Each structure stands twice: as C-alpha cells, then as structure tokens.
C-alpha cells in the first residue's frame, strides 16, 4: 500500500519501530480521513509515541492512551526514535 519513498532522514516507519522505544512523529506520508482521525487521537507531527506491540494491527501508546492501528496506516507515519531515552510517553515536563 505504502509508496516506498526512499527515506533519507534517520526516520523509521511507526510499524517498524522497536517496541518500548519512544519516538517523535516527524512526517506523515499521505493524508486521508483515517489519518485525520489518527492525528485527532494524538499521532501528529511533533508528538511522542511508543510502539507497544508489533504486528498487524499493532498497538501504539500516545499520551495516556493505547491505540490499536492497522499496520498499513501506521506505516505511513514516520518517526524519529528518541536518543536521550525518555521514560514517559508524555513530553510535558518542559
């Protein structure tokens, strides 16, 4: 489904993230209704997410909630793994 654009930045697809590693959403490949819904639920650029469980569908944690998402949708979201290692998925302690 996903158009295999070459990824130049050090981004990975959300579905390919290592479980229990938190990451920041950097890019969203194609926009549609389902993606709008995902954004309303908190998966939008700049937010921290964490892959809880791989597979299809997979489980992602964003803020205090856990979302079950189809892999083909999740793979349209490109994330950058946090290097500093952040323990909580809420980056609100700034």
């Amino acid at each position, binding site marked *: 489904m996903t158009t295999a654009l070459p990824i130049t930045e050090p981004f990975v697809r959300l579905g390919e993230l290592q479980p229990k590693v938190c990451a920041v959403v950097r890019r969203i490949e194609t926009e549609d209704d389902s993606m*709008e819904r995902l954004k309303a639920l*908190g998966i939008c650029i700049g937010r921290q997410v964490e892959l809880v*469980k791989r597979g*299809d569908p997979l489980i992602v944690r964003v803020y205090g909630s*856990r979302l*079950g998402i189809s892999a*083909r949708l999740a793979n349209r979201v490109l994330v950058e793994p946090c290097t500093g290692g952040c323990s909580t998925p809420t980056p609100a302690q700034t």
Partner: protein
Amino acid sequence: MHGRLFDSNPRANLTMATVPPIAGLDEHGATASRSHHFTLALAGNPNAGKTTLFNALTGLRAKTSNFPGTTIERKVGRVRLSDRQIIVVDLPGLYSLESTSPEEQIAAQALSGRLTEHGKADAVVLVVDATNLERNLFLVSQVLELQIPTVVALNMIDLAQRHGLKIDPARLRLELGCPVVPISARHGTGIDLLQREIERLAAPCSSPLDFLPPMPACAGCSGCQFQTRYAWTEGISSRCVTRSHETRGSRTEKIDEILTRPIIGVAAFFAVMFGVFFLIFQCARIPMDLIDGFFAHVAGFAARHLPEGLWSSLVVNGIIHGVGGILVFLPQICIMFFFLSLMEDTGYFARAAFVMDRLMRRIGLPGKAFVPLLSAHACALPAIMSTRVIEDRRDRIVTILVAPLMSCSARIPVYTMLIALLFPHSPIKAALMFTGAYAVGVTTALVMAWVFKRTILPGQSKPLVLELPPYRLPGLRNALLQMFDRASVFIRTAGTTILCISVALWFLASFPRVAPPSAAVALNAESTSLAQQGKAKEATAKRNEAETVAARDQLDRSLAGRLGHTLEPVLKPLGFDWQIGIGVITSFAAREVIVSTLGVVYGVGSNAAEEHPESLYDTLRQARRADGSAVFNTANCFSLLIFYVLAAQCLPTQAVTRRETGTWKWPLFQIAYMTGLAYMAAFLVFQVLRHFGFA
C-alpha cells in the same frame, strides 16, 4: 405543573443565556427561568465516561431516539435542578469536531447549533478523562471556541489519583477560562457540585483563543491545527498536573500482553462468546417458554370468553399471537445487550475487535462486525441492533444484510422436523446434518459479505483505528440501563411492524370465511349425540377432530391457501407441493410457524404438532400424494432444509433492518437476495438429488 409551560421561541433561549447566573434561582428570576427548557449537551471523547455521567444525572427518565433524519442515536433525559427543568442530551462520543465519521459529525453539528431541533445547546458539559488529560483537552480546545457556556467535568478523578496524577482543578479552571469540576461518575462523587455549576451556566466563557499561540502561517498544511492544539494541551497539562509515580495502564498492559496475541486472543474471544451464547440459549429459554405459556393462556382465556366468530379469531390469532410474537424476542435481546454492555464497559470489546480485525479484513469487514455475526446465531434481531458499533456505514449495511443468513434459534424447530423426517433412526447422521445446516449458513454469509463488499457496496474498509481503554470493572447499573433501553427501542420501533405482520398473516389465513365442511358438521353431530349418551371423553375427541378438519378446510380455501396453490408451479421445481407452499408463506411471521402450519395442513392440529412433534413427524412420513407417492422424500426434505437455511422468512428482521438503515431499500433487498439464493440452492439440491433417484 405550571412549570411545564415553556416558550418555544428560540429568541427566548438567547435571553435566558444572558441572564446573570444566580438570577434564575432567586424568587424574582424564577418566573423567567421557568419560561423555557434549558438544553444541556453532554459531550466528550469515547470512553471518557459520558454515558455513566448521563445515567447518574438522569437515571431511568431517559429516552433513546434518533437524531431527526438519521439513524444515529441520542439519549435525551430530563433533570430538575432547583425549579428549572433541564433537558440533557447525550451526544455520541467524539475525538474532534472535524471528524468524518457520521456519529462524530452529528455530535459536532449538535454542538455548533447546526442541528435545528433543539436549537443550539444552551450549555455543554464536556466530560474529560482525568487519566488522559492531554488527549482529552484537544476536544476541549475546539469546543471552547464555539463560545457555548461550558463546564468541564473532570471524570475519573479517583482513578487519576490512584495512578499518581495530581491535577489542580483551580489552575485548570484558570487556564481554560471555564468551570472545572472533578467528579467520579461511577461512584457519584462530585455530581452535586457539577449540578450546581450547571445551574450557574449562563455567560459564555472567555475564549481559549486568547491562550492559544497564533496559528503558524502555513496555509493548506492540515497538520498545523493538530500541532498547535496539542502543544496547547501539553502546556496546560504540564502546569496543572503533577506526577508522583506513573502507574497508569500497567495492569492493563499485562492483561493485554495475553489477550491481544493473535491466536490466544482469538481463542479467548471465542471462549467468551461461547459463554455468552450458552447463557442466551439456556437462560432465554425459561422466560421465552413463560412468555409463550402466558400468551397461550391469555389466548385460551380470550377464546373462552369472547363470543365465537371473527372478532374472537382476530383477537386470539392475530393480536394476542402478535404481541406474544414481539415479547418472545425480549429475553434474547435483553441478555445479549446486558452482556455486550458488560463487555464494552470492561474494555474487552475493543480487544475482541482488535484480534478479530485481521481475520475479518479478508472478507472486507472490520473486526467489530464479528460480534453481530456471531450473535446472529441466537437471533438476527439483537445482532442487527448491535451493528451500531461498526463505524463505517457500508461495512455496517453489509453486516446487517448477511446477519440473517446465520442459523438463528427459530430455525432449530424446522431443522429438527426435517432432520427427523430424513434420518429418523440415525443420531449421528442427524447431528452431521445439523452441523451442515449451520455451516452452510456461515459460509454463505461470509461469501455474500465478500461479494457485497466488491459489488454493491464497494470500497476498502477503513483501516483500524481503535482506542484500547484501560480495563475496568463493569457497572451493573449501566448494563441494566442499556438492557432496558434496547428492549424499549425494540418494542417501540419493531413492535408495531411485527404486530401488523401478525394481523396481516391472520387475515391471509382466515379470509375468505368458509362454512365448516360437511365432514366437520357430521363429526360435530356425532360429538353431540355422544355427549348426550354421557360419553364425555369420546365427545370431546370427536369435537377436536371436527375442529381440526374445519381448520384444515379453512386454511386450504383461505387467501394463504390460494396463494399456496398459485405458487405451486413456482415451488414445484423445488419439490414443494401447495401444502408446503402454505407453510413457507406463513413462516414469514416466524420460521418455526411452518411446524404448526404443516400440523394444520396435514390434519394433526396445530397444538398437537407443537406438543407432540412425534405425532406430526409420523403423519408427515405417512402423508401420500394422490398417486400414492410419499409427500416427503429425501430430495424435497433436503431442498426444504436448504431453503430454510437461506431464505429471509422473518419479517421482524426486515422491520429491524428498516430501523437500523433508515430506508426500506435495504430490507427489501435483503428479502430479495436471500429468497433468490434460497430458491436457487433448493432448486439445485432437489434437481440433483432427483436425478440420482432420491425422490
């Protein structure tokens, strides 16, 4: 009750809204406040506890109806707060005002006043999940911009505290510019405080736009709205929430580790559904028999006390039978929705949809479609009513269309009869036959769903986006309210249709009236003379025989009988004669009716057929045509069986489909395609078997 008089002029609403807060409560303001009903909308994210709060506010006084012109439900309740009648509307849960799902759009329209019926909501209670503030504040930021008087109900505050989240409501109130009341809807804490705030609602709160940073200048970039709002919610959260020890969701995660695994998860789900089914079958039996028995008594009572004739027949066979036919569905509907509500409340339902999603995608339906399809094995009616959980309309219609193909409990008496005719002495073959009938139903339903998704309702189903809420103990009160609610919706909307069908079928079977045939007259005369000789037992037997003969003659010459005769050429290729034709026609009220109809047609009597099925089976086995061949043979028993597996012979199903789809188009299509399928399958089965000499 002078408070009932109210001004329907929308202008009055506006004036009300600007009355200073306390004025409505004091002596002088009281008259003004009584002049109209204040409409309060309840909005919030799904799983934020909106319905629990709604139940806590309104209790049993709520009523479910559709938003005008849609099939989307809303609950409306009334609550009296210090002399003011307040209408509370529970809107569908929503994540964003700009969502594309129909339910969320309706909720958004209701909030922004684009739905005209109640006018713009006078005030909003925004239910916010305290354990997930950042996400929930997203919707808050949008709703506050609508400039409606708003109270934020900070729900599940007890849970948040337990998970080490300390929220400062005073600070939050300052940040949002509107009242914030910490509550626990489940335990009823803070509800009184919330009610006081609702009373005070009048002046619009200050716009949160003051707090929002200016929108970045990048036209056409849809990501910005989300980015900006989430930056805002995170900022507020960081200022209002202090975290001591973060424990939210650890227990949930442990349970999910098991329940969302592909194989164990599916197995666990099947185990749960098997349990629910078992309860539906076992527990529903008792009240269903009681209802049946009760209506049989009422019918008997009415038959004895009403003067014999047309009216008595209408009351007994049309109306009492019809009302009984509606109520007999209730036990299954109640049990089903009680358990569905428990499953939803605990959060398990989301997991079931999650694990089934991958399997269901193969036929093009979402995981959520599985529960209705499975529960259609008990009864298609509650199954179709429960398709509301499916968000996409096309997916929902496909599920509704194929659900009645699953073998429901009403088919069991028919299967039992036919299988007894086919394999009277072989329990193993009988069991295999039963399994086969169920398998044909399931397979056809899945294949048809696949076909519909590729033809009349095309479109890739939306990818799964589903919140997995934390597991919680379910609320019994919610489950019971949900059960009563579904039962009343069923009676109000499908009840009338079912009653009409029952009366119409009574009409078909009773008109035109014919005089009792000479054989019946002779039997009656014999009965009278026997009675005179003091042989009461023989007299009753003769009278019953006379009644059976008369009933058979009446049905034979009635409209239904003529229809049976007229349809005979059409049904002949399936191996059905006109008697079976009458059975097929009368089954449209409910499938199991064919058993008692065949009882009447073959002269066993309808009661005998139900009470002593063996006597009916024997009669049917021995029934002969004019040429001496058996009426029931292997070929036409198989063809009748396959016909009953596939045909849409349950008009109540169409009544419910009409309600759930909002148009007659789909129930008519449902009848047409199912009957078409049934006809073709029965035709093939009969012709093939006859070819090989089984007729």
